[in-house]
């Protein structure tokens, strides 16, 4: 375990450096000249393009540009939005809580439902609940999230008129910003009616985003629990005549929890990547819509920063998952 840990930790800076190189080079892969685009397109005068190039530092050699990019990153400077002229770090700070709220809601919904479905399937193998769980997880993994979002909007918002969609709160309502998580902020503001509205706005995007976690969690739970139920210690427990409920929950489920940790590492990219499309459909003011707006307005600094942030989060999360897996499982801990 120590060796594995040391290796992972040693490779971390290499990977992170590679990630910054990719986000840095992404700008230089863009066809055409970013300086020209930013100076106003083909109509820009050569002087204006040149001035923009100097302003952006694009006239310096690439390695120098890269080093100064790294230097700025180390100081926590993510650059300035070319569109709004504001610091990208503070704009991300405003957007991040909305994405976090959506992802958390999808996890809070997906993990219990998925676990229950998987446990039901594992304890009733090859019977109706098992087949049902398999079909649900297959369908959950096959429906494109943005289509699912459209269907849910059509059904619940338009046909039935039961749920609102678009944004986090009804139009023209605001809540004093404390945590940035709208549901929490409405609670802190002491306005239960508004909390209810915030929750109602959260339902459709969260359910859409929860489909993949439900599908993956139920698959993992079923596989892990089925394996445990077939193991010698469970057979022994059964031989002692313990009730099935005790066998399943006290003997099998405990060990089957382990793969769920790895699962979190798999779910994170699904939530981060899938959320972009869902945020766009629901006009959710998170990082996804921010990224897409930046792409459309050619705001390179923002695209660079958001991509970097998501990649770094992703790398750190998978490292944590690997490490915690090692710490939780004595078999992995002892080995190597």
């Amino acid at each position: 375990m120590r060796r594995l840990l040391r290796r992972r930790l040693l490779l971390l800076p290499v990977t992170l450096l590679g990630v910054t190189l990719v986000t840095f080079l992404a700008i230089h892969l863009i066809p055409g000249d970013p300086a020209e685009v930013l100076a106003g397109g083909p109509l820009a005068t050569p002087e204006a393009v040149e001035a923009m190039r100097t302003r952006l530092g694009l006239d310096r050699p690439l390695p120098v540009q890269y080093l100064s990019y790294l230097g700025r990153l180390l100081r926590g400077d993510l650059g300035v939005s070319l569109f709004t002229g504001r610091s990208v770090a503070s704009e991300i700070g405003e957007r991040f809580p909305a994405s976090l709220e959506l992802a958390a809601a999808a996890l809070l919904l997906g993990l219990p439902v998925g676990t229950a479905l998987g446990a039901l399937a594992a304890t009733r193998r090859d019977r109706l609940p098992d087949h049902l769980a398999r079909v649900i997880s297959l369908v959950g993994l096959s429906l494109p999230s943005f289509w699912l979002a459209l269907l849910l909007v059509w059904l619940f918002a338009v046909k039935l008129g039961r749920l609102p969609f678009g944004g986090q709160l009804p139009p023209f309502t605001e809540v004093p910003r404390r945590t940035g998580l709208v549901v929490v902020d409405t609670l802190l503001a002491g306005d239960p009616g508004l909390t209810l509205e915030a929750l109602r706005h959260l339902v459709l995007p969260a359910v859409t985003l929860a489909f993949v976690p439900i599908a993956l969690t139920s698959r993992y739970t079923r596989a892990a629990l089925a394996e445990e139920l077939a193991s010698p210690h469970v057979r022994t427990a059964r031989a002692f005549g313990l009730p099935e409920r005790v066998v399943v929950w006290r003997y099998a489920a405990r060990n089957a929890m382990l793969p769920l940790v790895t699962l979190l590492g798999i779910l994170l990219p699904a939530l981060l990547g899938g959320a972009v499309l869902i945020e766009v459909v629901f006009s959710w003011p998170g990082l996804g819509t921010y990224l897409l707006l930046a792409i459309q307005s050619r705001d390179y600094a923002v695209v660079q920063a958001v991509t970097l942030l998501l990649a770094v989060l992703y790398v750190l999360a998978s490292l944590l998952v690997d490490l915690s897996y090692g710490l939780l499982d004595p078999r992995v801990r002892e080995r190597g």
Partner: protein
Amino acid sequence: MTVATTTRRGTAWHRLRRNRLSFAGVLVLSGVVITVIVGPLLWRVDPIAIDLANRLAAPSALHPLGTDIQGRDLLARILHGGRVTLFVAVASVVVALVFGSGAGLLSGFVRGWFDTAVMRVADVLLAFPPLLLALVIAAARGPGVANTILAVSIPALPRFARLMRAQSLAIREREYVLAAWAVGLSPLRILFRHVLPNAVGPVTVQASIAAGIAVLEVAGLGFLGLGVQPPSPELGAILVDSQTYLLQQPTAVLAPGIVISLSILGFNLLGDALGDVFDVGSGS
């Protein structure tokens, strides 16, 4: 050797038949593929011919799925669009498969600094959530068929490389490879005749799973306006257009989504089926 192969194929077919769900998956996928290949040949209506007099026409014999907001026949658009989406997705998997597995195969075979370099690049590519990486590449390169193929194939590269490397590392230690070295065969011949054919199984499983993800990403990029561009129909692009008149013409939203979902479902089930056949991942 021939006998052994036949028996193995025999059991493989048997296993595929035994698992009804996998079999259904193969049927669904072939159904979608045949429909988008043959469909446009039978239903010879121009998918981009605008007919403003017939905007949002209800489904009829003339337009079985109705028309869109510009009076274009929806059935033709979905048949052609399905063709485009599937073609771009499969093409990007082929690109990722060839370059990714190629790098992985060499990496495991020659090892040394080349191996280290390939694996570090793979680590970096794996550091990005796949859809995000595709999105950023598509944004940087601009829309269009070729760029979409590039954007969707790059996130898939490292998975093929890692898988093939593991296969290659394991196979190079086998006796028949050592024997091939011993009788003095050239490294290229050993690589292509002895290592590669024995490493193919798990890669086909990965290819099928990757194809499902690719369909999702191609349609997703089209939906965000960063993929294949109009007037060329593409399922994701049709969806983003039709969501604005969802109420007047629900088939314009339902049909493309159903085709996308069935393709992804088919690829996922095929992946499961191939996994059973090649006995991949059953141990874990």
